[in-house]
C-alpha cells in the first residue's frame, strides 16, 4: 500500500542529482588513510618551513635594542628629604608619609644610567609596572565606557563602586571606576649628560599618537561643551576621582586635543594589560631635532622622575624602558625559538616515519596480500 519514497526518485527526475546523491549517502568522497608514507611529506614540509621562519624571527627580535631602568627605590634630590650629608630618603618612603600632600608636595629623583648600544630610529619610551594586577576581574569591570564616550551619565554603573561618586557631595567621579582612578601619574624626563653629543640636554619627547587610533577617535570622547565644570561645561556636576591630584579637564591644558577623556595617557592606561607585569607606551622620541635625527646615541643619560605613584604597598616595581621595535613588536625571543623547536621536531618525526616506512612498510603489504594460500607464520 505504501509507496516507497525511494522508488519515486526514478519517476521524479526533478530531484537534483546532488540531492539524490546526498540522500543516498553517495556523495563523491576522498578517503585519505594516514599511513606513514602519506604523512611523511607533511612533516618534512613543516620542518622546512618552520626552521627558516624561526631563524628569521630570532634575527628580527635580536635587532630590537632595549634598555630598562628600575627606579622604584630611587632617592630624592630635595634637601627637605635629607637625612645625612649626601644621604637622602627614598622617594617611595617620602610619598607614603602621612604629611605628604599629593598634588602640592613633590618628590623628585634623578638616576644616571648608560645606554650601551645606539638605538636606531624610532625609539619609544615606556613605563613598566610589576606585580600590578590590572587583569583582576573586579578591577577590569570597574569602568564606565559610556561615560568615556562622552555621554552624560546621571547614574554611574554599579560596577564603578566604590569609585563611582563622592560619598559626601554625591557628585559623580569623572571618570568613574577603579581603572581610571589608578591612573599612572609619574612624570619621566630624559636628559643627555654628555654635552659632547650635542648642545641639547633634554631629550625631546612626543606625547601624541601613543594610543590606538580607534580608541582616540571613537571610544573616547569628551562630552559637548567647554572643558571645565562650570554649569554649562562638559563636566558639570562631576568631581575629580579619588586618587587624582587634578580634575580630568586639566590633564593637559596646553593641548585641547589631548585634554579631558581624550588625553592619550589616560587612553593608554584604560586599555587594561593582560599580565601583572606589563609596560605601556609613555612617550615617543622626537626624531625631528637634528641631534636625535636618526637615533638615540649610546652614552650616559639621566632619568628625572616626578615620583608620585605609590607601588610599595603591594610590592610593585616601576621601570622606565627605552626600546626600538621591529615589525613583530618589541623584544621577544619566544616565537623564534618556538618555530625552530617545532620545525626541528617535525623534521625529526619525518625522519622517524621514513625509517618506519622503510622498515615496516612490508608488514602492511603482507597484511594486504593475505589470501587462502598464505602460509601460517611460524
Amino acid at each position, binding site marked *: 500500500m*505504501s509507496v*516507497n519514497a*525511494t522508488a519515486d526518485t526514478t519517476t521524479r527526475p526533478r530531484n537534483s542529482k546532488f540531492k539524490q546523491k*546526498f540522500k*543516498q*549517502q553517495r*556523495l*563523491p*568522497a*576522498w*578517503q585519505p*588513510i*594516514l*599511513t*606513514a608514507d602519506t*604523512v611523511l611529506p607533511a612533516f618534512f614540509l*613543516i620542518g622546512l618551513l*618552520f626552521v627558516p*621562519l624561526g631563524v628569521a*624571527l630570532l634575527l628580527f627580535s635580536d635587532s630590537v635594542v632595549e634598555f630598562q631602568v628600575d627606579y622604584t627605590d630611587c632617592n630624592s634630590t630635595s634637601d627637605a628629604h635629607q637625612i645625612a650629608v649626601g644621604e637622602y630618603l627614598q622617594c617611595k618612603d617620602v610619598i607614603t608619609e602621612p604629611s605628604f600632600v599629593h598634588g602640592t608636595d613633590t618628590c623628585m629623583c634623578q638616576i644616571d644610567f648608560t645606554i650601551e648600544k645606539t638605538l636606531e630610529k624610532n625609539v619609544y619610551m*615606556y613605563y613598566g609596572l610589576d606585580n600590578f*594586577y590590572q*587583569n*583582576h*576581574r573586579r578591577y*577590569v569591570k570597574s569602568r564606565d*565606557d*559610556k561615560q568615556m*564616550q562622552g555621554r552624560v551619565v546621571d547614574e554611574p*554603573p554599579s*560596577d564603578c563602586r566604590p569609585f563611582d561618586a563622592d560619598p559626601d557631595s554625591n557628585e559623580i567621579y569623572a571618570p568613574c571606576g577603579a581603572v581610571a582612578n589608578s591612573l599612572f601619574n609619574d612624570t619621566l624626563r630624559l636628559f643627555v649628560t654628555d654635552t659632547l653629543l650635542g648642545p641639547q640636554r633634554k631629550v625631546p619627547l612626543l606625547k601624541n599618537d601613543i594610543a*590606538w587610533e*580607534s*580608541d582616540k577617535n*571613537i*571610544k573616547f570622547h569628551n562630552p559637548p561643551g567647554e572643558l571645565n565644570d562650570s554649569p554649562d561645561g562638559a563636566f558639570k556636576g562631576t568631581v575629580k576621582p579619588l586618587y587624582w591630584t587634578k580634575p580630568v579637564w586639566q590633564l593637559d591644558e596646553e593641548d585641547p586635543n589631548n585634554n579631558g577623556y581624550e588625553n592619550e595617557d589616560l587612553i593608554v592606561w584604560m*586599555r*587594561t*594589560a*593582560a*599580565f*601583572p*607585569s*606589563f609596560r605601556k607606551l609613555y612617550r615617543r622620541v622626537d626624531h625631528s631635532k637634528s641631534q636625535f635625527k636618526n637615533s638615540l646615541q649610546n652614552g650616559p643619560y639621566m632619568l628625572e622622575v616626578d615620583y608620585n605613584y605609590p607601588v610599595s604597598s603591594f610590592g610593585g616595581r616601576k621601570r622606565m624602558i627605552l626600546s626600538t621595535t621591529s*615589525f*613583530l*613588536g*618589541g623584544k*621577544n625571543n*619566544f*616565537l623564534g625559538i*618556538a*618555530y625552530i623547536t*617545532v620545525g626541528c621536531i617535525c623534521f625529526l*618525526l619525518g625522519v622517524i*616515519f621514513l625509517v*618506519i*616506512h622503510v622498515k615496516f612498510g612490508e608488514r602492511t603489504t603482507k*597484511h*594486504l596480500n593475505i589470501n587462502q594460500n598464505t602460509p601460517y607464520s611460524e
Partner: protein
Amino acid sequence: QAERTIKLLLEQVAPPRGDDADGTESNLTVATDATTLASAAGSAAAADNSNSSRSCSRLTAREDDESIETAPETRERGLVVDGKTLIFILDQRTHLLPAFLSLTQQCSSVLISRATPLQKALVVKLTKQSLGIMTLAVGDGANDVSMIQTADVGVGISGVEGRQAVMASDFAITRFSHLHRLLLLHGHWCYDRFASIILYYFYKNANLTLVLLWYQFYCCFSGNNFIDQMYLIAFGLFFTSIPPIVIGVYDKDTPSSVLLSEPKLYSVGRLNQVYKHSYFWVNILDAFYQSLVMFFFAAATHLGTVSGLDELGTTVMHSCLVSQLLHVAVEIKSWTILHVLSLVGSLLVFHLFIVLYTLTCVSCFGLQSQYGVWAHLITSPRHWLIVLITAVTAVLPRFVYRGLQSSLYPSAVQLSVLRNKQRVWKARLHREPHEGGKRQGEELPIQLISQNNVEG
C-alpha cells in the same frame, strides 16, 4: 550470495504444515548433533515429549566466523520450537528456561513458530536479560509491535500488513532484505560517527574551559574571562558546531562496497572497539595538552609587552578555533564537499562575526569593549604567526599517532580499506573491466535490490 544472519532473529513464518492441531502434546523438534547438547537440554526436553528426532536442519546459510554464540564446534545447528512448547518453557514453574537459553546459545539460529505476540516479546526480554546481549527485532505486522518495543533495536517493515510495526520501531525499512544494508552499512557507519563526534565534543569543551583556567594563574584566580563573553557564546554555537554535525551525518570510515563484501567488519561495532574507556581519557589528555599549547604559546609571546587583555584573548580564541578545526580535519575519514564547506564556512562565520562585532559594538551588553581589537590584530604579523604555530603544534601528537597506528598496528577496518584501495589502483592500472563491473553490481541502488530481491 546467501543472506547472513548476524544476530538472534525471531521471525514469524508461515504456519508449518502438519501441525498437531488436535493433540495436546507439543511437538518439540530438537535438532542437535552431539550428545553434549542432548545432555544439557535434551533430558529436559525429552521428559516433555516422547519422540525426539535427531535431524539436523540447516535453516539458513553459513554463519560468519565470529558469532556471539561461541560454540566449540563450528558445525551449524538450528533449533525449531513452536508456540505451544514455548508456553511450557516460558512458564516459571517448569524451570526449563535456563536450559532452553543455554541450548539456544549453542545454535546458529532458532526458529519459533506460532508464537503469540506476548511470547515473542517475552523471549526477547528474557534473552536480553539473562544473556546480556544486544537484541534486534524485525517485524512487519501489528503482532510484532510488542517484540519490537522490547528489543534494544526495533526495525519495522512497512508493507503488506500495515504500518503499526513501523510506528513502533526505531528504524523502518521497506523490504526485509534492506536489513542487510541497515546493519552492515548504516549501523557500522552510525557507530563510528557517534564515537567520533562524542569524543570530539568532549574534547572541544574541555579544551576551551582549560584555556580559560590557565589564565587564572595570571590574574589572581579572580575569575576573569580573558576571552570576551560574546566570543565564548559564539564559539560553541557558531564557530565549531557545524563540522561535527557533518561528521555525524556523513563521515564514512569505509566505503560501502568493502563493508558489504566483508561482513566481519561489523564486529568493530558489536565489540565496541571504537569507543572505549581508554579512548575517552586519552582524548581528554589530548584536550589538556592542546589547551596548554594554545594558551602558553600566546602568553609567552605577549608577556611583558604592551599587549592588552583584549588582544591576548582574541589571539588565544583565534588559535583555539583554528586548532580545533584542524583537529576535525585530521579526524575526518572521508572528505566530501560538505566537509570542506563546513570547515571553510566555520572560518568564514568566525571572521564575519568578529569583524562585525569589533567594528560596530563600541560598548554593548555591558561587556568590555572590543572595539578596534580585530582591526589591530589582523594587521599584526605576530598574531598570525602565533595562530599558525599553535594550530600545528596542538594537532601534531594526534597526527603522529594516526600515522603510526595505521602503519604499525592497523585495525581490521583500515586493512580492508587499504586492500580495497590497492585493488582499485591495480584495476585502474591494468584496466580490468571485470573488477569494475563486479563492484558496480554490489552497489546497486536500493530500489533495484528491492525489486529484484537479489539474495540468493
